């Protein structure tokens, strides 16, 4: 188990290093911050001064290594826009984003897993078919379309919920639904097929032949096996929640990191964008680590190599 975890940690560190490098390259290639921030009309001396100030006139490799060293020190630079530290700018937005993504994840788990399990146990019933159909829709509809549809119904037509801003918990409901529903449907469908696959395996019949009541067979034998593939999907959902936050925060004018990213990119605010990408990469990598760890906990076959070695 220890070797298993160590190898995953090493891979995680490598992933983050790659993301940092990738972010550096893409941002340097995609336009000169000086002209974008100062405007195309700015006098050449001003642009020169700006570039010198931010170190943009030095060789790219030197910039890259400086940048990497700074990150290792925990220094992610200063916003070119308002001169505050990028970490501070990003940090103050994080709670707002967590206020959407964490409830959305719980919504996905609380709806998706029970619905999927129930549908598998009642295959072919009306409930099962409803789950299947809504899963197809839930996954196919882009989140901005779902967001607009929810706004049309609950804000414009019924007037029950606000359509944007962050003044009360009421404002969070529609963004959370938008973020959570698609994933809940996908999770339900996936859980259902994982359960059906497991219920068809021979050890389920062995468990029944032993005299275990059906509920105990489902709880003790089917669920622990179906959980293994389902954990993969949950890891994937966490990733798509982060991507979804960018869209949803923009649509609902929610002041989180997603909207900050949109603004920072269009401003070429390098330090802030880099800091955000690092945050996204770190959260993806963390969720993958948790998934790998859960695999190890759930599946003894994965632990075996580590046990033989350690």
């Amino acid at each position, binding site marked *: 188990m220890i070797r298993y975890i160590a190898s995953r940690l090493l891979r995680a560190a490598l992933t983050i290093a790659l993301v940092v490098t990738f972010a550096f390259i893409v941002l340097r290639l995609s336009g000169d911050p000086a002209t974008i921030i100062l405007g195309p009309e700015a006098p050449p001396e001003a642009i020169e001064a700006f570039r010198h100030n931010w170190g943009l006139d030095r060789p790219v490799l030197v910039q890259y290594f400086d940048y990497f060293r700074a990150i290792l020190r925990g220094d992610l630079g200063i916003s070119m826009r308002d001169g505050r530290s990028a970490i501070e700018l990003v940090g103050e937005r994080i709670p707002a984003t967590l206020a959407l993504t964490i409830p959305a994840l719980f919504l996905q788990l609380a709806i998706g897993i029970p619905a999927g399990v129930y549908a598998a146990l009642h295959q072919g019933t009306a409930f099962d078919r409803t789950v299947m159909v809504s899963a197809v829709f839930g996954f196919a509809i882009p989140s901005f379309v779902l967001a607009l549809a929810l706004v049309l119904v609950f804000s414009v037509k019924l007037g029950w919920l606000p359509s944007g801003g962050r003044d009360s918990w009421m404002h969070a409901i529609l963004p959370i639904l938008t973020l959570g529903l698609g994933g809940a449907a996908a999770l339900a469908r996936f859980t259902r097929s994982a359960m059906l696959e497991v219920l068809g395996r021979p050890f389920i019949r062995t468990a029944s032949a*032993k005299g275990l009541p059906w509920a105990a067979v489902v709880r003790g034998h089917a669920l622990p*096996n179906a959980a293994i593939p389902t954990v993969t999907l949950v890891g994937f959902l966490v990733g798509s929640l982060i991507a979804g936050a960018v869209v949803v925060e923009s649509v609902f004018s929610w002041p989180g990191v997603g909207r900050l990213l949109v603004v920072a990119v269009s401003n070429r605010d390098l330090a802030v964008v880099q800091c955000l990408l690092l945050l996204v990469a770190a959260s993806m990598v963390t969720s993958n680590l948790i998934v790998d760890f859960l695999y190890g906990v759930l599946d003894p076959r994965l632990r075996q190599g580590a046990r033989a070695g350690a």
Partner: protein
Amino acid sequence: MAGPLIRIEGLRVAFDGAPAVRGVDFAIHRGEALGIVGESGSGKSVTWLAALRLLPEKAVVEGRVSLDDDNLLEAPIERMEHLRGGRIGMIFQDPASALNPVLTIRRQMAEALALHRGLSGKSIDAEARRLLDLVGIPDAAGRLKSYPHEMSGGQNQRVMIAMALAGNPDLLIADEPTTALDVTIQAQILDLLQLVRRETDMALVLISHDLGVVAENCDRVAVMYAGRVVEEAPARTLFEAPRHPYTRGLIDALPTLDAPRRLVAIPGVVPDPRRMPPGCAFSPRCAHAAPACLGAVPELRRLEPGRRIACARAAELDLQPAATALPAETARPEVRA
């Protein structure tokens, strides 16, 4: 004489309108070993899965399965749960997939011991160790902590047997318990079943493709074809003087010392359950088929004590060993791998 331990009467099973078992009767006495043979799809497994109500819901089951005063097909589900694993144990073909991959052997055995013996805590460990010792697993204490993938197929099948014995059953149904194992392990598992039977006086149903295995390990053998029993007799009698053309065919197809693999397989294939031939289901493949065979499905009749045959021409046929068997010397070079 006391009545049979378990009696199956008029058992019929259909899946989506296709009959898989078409009227089967069996009676098994205490301590007796009954072998069931037949080609793939003849309904051997379905018969016993139906008796224990382990088939999916879409299976339509009719008939009666009596164990003492219970009709298993109509007993409340709680009663069934008590009988499954308690009075009737069952083990399956592929032990590696018949055990749960994410649970320890201890946990899987503990379930049976808790359900049927009311054990808990330390006494579960002690009894599980005793059972693993009984089925010949070395280092039983260590093995309790193992997972199925850490053990060989033969050891997993021993665990399955130990688990089935946990409830002290009166009957063990072994559905092709050695098919997935290699030959030396097969023999060990069959020996183990015999040993267990001697020590516990439990009845055994041994399902197999292999007439030889069944003849060596059972008192009585039933041959199934297309969802029916076509012949049933004491093992030795059946082997030496089969009365049903299908049984004759199975025996002629057996390898012998002279000809490790003879070429006399029964021509043709098992009929599609949706399109059963009229009358005797074996008639399209039977060398003795006559117009009399096509009228009604032949009844399984008692021809002499302990012997039942379902063949319209049973009384008149004298089935000699197949004349087509080649001398060993010429047969050997043509053996197909």
